[in-house]
């Protein structure tokens, strides 16, 4: 399934946050969106998944969702968004309960996704008992349970410490090798972007416009061995962004 954004513009009150953004996420492709803080990255992602209406332009999906997909466009949030009063298994169960799946099959799906994310031993733990990395794994398990066609990831690793981030990044790469999901991955971390992205969409500071799209034609599996090339790419993206980031840093914000 493909996600196509066409001429998206958006404003909050009197402030333009996004201006004429167009790009597409192809089948099995990870597209990273980077940009200085406050450039509307998260707003763009909310528009892409239908959580917010764009002022202008439209978000389109093309092609059929894979067989049995319960929720084609599925989010992974920066703050994990787990219900603190439900156990790990209960949090996964939440997103299956509205689909009229019989209890036995639901339990089988939960067991399956928890084992795929190495969480089987934590099925009955509450979120407050888990580390940040574990919480995000639960959120990933929850996303897998609905068989998404396109994952919309809003800075999924930003709330984690750098070691956990490395571990989860490896998990994500391994997961992608197996499932070949499409993803729109918003981040401010350029190292994440060059490790995961097939393409990197660089946004300008507010109002966010596409500054440049950087293609990375290197298989994900080879990237850990070709760090020198990645380093060069990362520097190139940073060169594009540097001035924008500096200006954005000096701006007075009046948008919440």
């Amino acid at each position, binding site marked *: 399934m493909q996600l196509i954004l066409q001429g998206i513009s958006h404003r909050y009150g009197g402030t333009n946050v996004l201006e004429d953004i167009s790009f597409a996420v192809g089948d099995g492709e990870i597209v990273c969106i980077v940009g200085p803080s406050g450039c509307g990255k998260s707003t763009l992602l909310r528009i892409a998944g239908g959580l917010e209406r764009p002022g202008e332009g439209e978000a389109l999906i093309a092609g059929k969702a894979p067989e049995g997909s319960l929720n084609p466009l*599925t989010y992974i949030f920066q703050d994990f*968004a787990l219900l603190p009063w439900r156990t790990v298994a209960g949090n996964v169960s939440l997103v299956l309960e*509205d689909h009229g799946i019989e209890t036995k099959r639901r339990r089988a799906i939960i067991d399956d996704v928890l084992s795929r994310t190495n969480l089987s031993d934590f099925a009955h733990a509450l979120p407050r008992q888990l580390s940040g990395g574990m919480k995000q794994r639960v959120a990933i398990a929850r996303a897998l349970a609905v068989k998404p066609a396109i994952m919309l990831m809003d800075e999924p690793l930003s709330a984690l410490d750098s070691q956990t981030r490395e571990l989860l990044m490896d998990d994500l790469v391994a997961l992608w090798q197996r499932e070949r999901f499409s993803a729109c991955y918003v981040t401010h971390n350029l190292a994440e972007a060059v490790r995961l992205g097939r393409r990197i969409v660089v946004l300008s500071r507010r109002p966010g416009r596409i500054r440049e799209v950087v293609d990375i034609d290197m298989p994900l599996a080879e990237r850990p061995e070709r760090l020198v090339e990645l380093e060069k790419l990362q520097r190139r993206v940073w060169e594009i962004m540097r001035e924008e980031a500096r200006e954005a840093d000096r701006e007075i914000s009046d948008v919440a």
Partner: protein
Amino acid sequence: MSHEAASTQGAGREEDTAAPEAARPVPFRGGGFTHRRLGPVAPIVFLAIIALWEAGSRAGIISPIALPAPSEALGALGDLVTTGMLWKHLGASIYRLGLGWVLGSLVGISVGLMVGLFSLARAGLLPLVSALFPIPKIALLPLFIIWFGIGEGSKVATILFGTFFPTVIATYGGVDNVDRNLIRMGQSFGLSWLSIVRKIIIPGAMPAILSGFRISASIAIVLLVAAEMIGAETGIGAYILMAGALFALDQLIAGVALLSMLGLAIAWLIGRAERALLSWRA
């Protein structure tokens, strides 16, 4: 200069960890501003006050006309038990309190959810709630007597109205405080509106609703006594009023002690409910 000193000292490695002569401990400046659990203090304070009071009464420092001794109040309480009047008064009070509080809480939670969820309800009902909340419900008792009769109806209605308003305010405040990201998460997974309310909003508002219960239960007890002082033959309020009219101060103190125990019992029950329903917090 300090660099030189460091390098000359570095030559003698063993001396590095050994304390120089003028070494003294870093002064401790932390601590304080936290609370320790001191279990037996509360009963000791309580018993000490009663013992002082009793001793004062026996020594004649406290006149029995001004304040009867605790032992006399205990005697009055014993009379209540032996004559069987305790259960009659307590039963009548608990019935009114239970019925009025449960109905008031149920209606209050429903209205509070509506105010929390629907803009129309918020615009229409919230000013009404703000206008009626500060009215002392006991001032409306004569009105309630005309509407619901002199019997149980008017007393239950007083408690119901007294419970209703704080519950509405606690509930809609709780709904407003539910993490918006959790609601957005529910929407992003395509959960139905009812599922979002049932599985995300109500559990999320539960801590606020339960702390509202603490306030509404105390208000309910105050209103119970007030309502029972007007046109009731049974109930703790009626018992206290009767004792006051006869200047039977021992009975008056016994009645007040009963109310205090009722309040403690309710606080304990709500504490149990909090532990059961909010075990995920801790």
